[in-house]
């Protein structure tokens, strides 16, 4: 299979299940909503070293609970408890601290985690609970509880509970480029297209990762190490999967609320990436041994 003259490897991306939550941050204007969101998403690239994967969703919300500009942040972690811990830390330290911000749950799910219910203690007894009924909130049959925490610029409103459900993490594809500038340009095209897909994040810096990893290491204390098979400089020293003429490889990792969202993001991303400077598109997997989800490139791109 080729797209725009770029061959697509007959392989698949292997992804695994992680628990996901979606947070909606509002503020006095988009700039400040984005400041809070960026801070919350900081140091949230990989579960390996950060404990969770966090990113800003590319699509802007059509409406927000307080009618102010808003930004959505997705957070993925290996367990519900981990999601709760990271939400409490990141909302507490990055959103509550950001001027004019408010923070709402943006994921309808059966399971809900107490987040505002924990952050409320910052109010030192002056926090106020407000519960609004479905006719006012207008989403299904559940009331929503908000905490109003007094802060120095007024009040920080945070929702009591945040929904959590199983999502997909680790969807990916690899861009094998002739040289680094061309590969980077292709990856940027891909990210721009993928940010229009709802319910996904690309958690690495700018959505792109250059230090892809393999499972294990020659060092006992390390459970992941550089992806030797895709490092151009190791072509002659380690078992390589790089064809001749490849000078740089970049990877795009995708986490999504559903497998369908990850598949759609991969599809539009690969299509946008295929162009001048790209030698081949491939994907990372572990032989099907680790992840529940497999995204076959040919299958995705022929649909």
């Amino acid at each position, binding site marked *: 299979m080729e797209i725009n003259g770029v061959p697509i490897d007959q392989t698949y991306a292997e992804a695994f299940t992680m628990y996901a939550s979606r947070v909606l941050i509002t503020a006095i204007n988009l700039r400040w909503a984005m400041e809070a969101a960026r801070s919350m998403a900081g140091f949230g690239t990989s579960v390996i070293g950060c404990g969770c994967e966090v990113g800003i969703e590319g699509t802007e919300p059509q409406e927000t*609970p307080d009618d102010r500009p808003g930004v959505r942040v997705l957070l993925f972690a290996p367990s519900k408890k981990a999601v709760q811990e990271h939400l409490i830390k990141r909302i507490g330290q990055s959103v509550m601290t950001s001027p004019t911000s408010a923070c709402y749950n943006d994921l309808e799910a059966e399971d809900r985690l107490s987040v505002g219910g924990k952050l409320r203690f910052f109010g030192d007894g002056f926090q*106020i609970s407000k*519960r*609004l*009924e479905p*006719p006012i909130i207008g989403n299904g049959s559940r009331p929503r509880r908000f905490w*109003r925490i007094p802060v120095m610029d*007024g009040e*920080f*409103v945070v929702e009591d509970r945040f929904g959590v459900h199983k999502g997909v993490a680790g969807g990916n594809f690899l861009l094998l480029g002739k040289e680094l500038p061309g590969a980077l340009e292709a990856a940027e095209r891909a990210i721009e297209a993928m940010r229009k897909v709802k319910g996904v994040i690309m958690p690495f810096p700018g959505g792109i990762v250059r230090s892809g990893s393999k499972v294990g290491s020659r060092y006992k204390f390390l459970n992941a190490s550089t992806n030797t098979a895709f490092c151009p400089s190791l072509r002659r020293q380690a078992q390589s999967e790089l064809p001749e003429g490849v000078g740089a490889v970049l990877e795009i990792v995708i986490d999504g609320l559903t497998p369908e969202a990850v598949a759609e993001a991969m599809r539009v991303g690969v299509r946008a990436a295929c162009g001048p400077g790209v030698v081949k598109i491939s994907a990372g997997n572990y032989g099907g041994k680790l992840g529940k989800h497999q995204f076959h490139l040919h299958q995705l791109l022929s649909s």
Partner: protein
Amino acid sequence: MPPVILRVKEAPTGVPLEAESISPDLFADRSREEIEALPVALGNESHRLGDFFQVEGERSDQIEVDGSIPRVKWVGSGMTRGRVVIHGDVGMHAGSYMRGGEILIEGNAADFLGVEMEAGLIRVRGNAGHRAGAAYRGSKFGMRGGIILIEGDVGHEVGAYMRRGLVVIKGNAEDFLGARMAAGTICLFGRAGLRTGGGMQKGMIVCMHPVELLPTFAYDCIYAPIFLRILFKGLKRLGVQPTPQQANGLYRRYHGDLAEIGKGEILIPA
């Protein structure tokens, strides 16, 4: 599901009729004959619902009362689901102890509307009497949840002892609005009477016009509470349209009642 329609045959004029059997929970699984046989009380006499109302339809949790029934009490009391529409006025205690569903009163509601309700929605197109959403005498708490929306004026002690929930009044309120409230929200678009929030412990009263506050309320600041934006956006869903100034503007915050624990708040547009 077509509604059960009740047409007034013989309106009580002296002693009021006690008709808590007018409830979607009781109508939902009953035939027309069974609905007609439901008990009602006129003073110390027991009667059948069919003695006072002509019943059309059966087995529905939607009820329509065709006409005014200002001397019929306890309509929809304790209901948990469905909808009751009254094309006119309704007597005392309508929707008291309500736990779900909706009551629409196209005329006026008498006293004790939605008293101690726990959930659901009550809408009144006209006025409501005293102690709407409040507690019965001797009870610790008033309404514990749900929404009461009154498009006209209300009487004394509305929302007194409230524990949770929302009361919205588009008209004016008489004295002791939200007196001794323990929590919950009251939003008054008209003018308030005397001693608003007297004895309140927690909870929020939003008054869109200047209020003569008790001396046990202290001024805090002028600010724009984010929560009001959420509340007013929700009110639009119920057909209440705050002005942009009300929805996005600044409010003077007072806290009190300092004769109690003083954690209640009264917000007045700045």
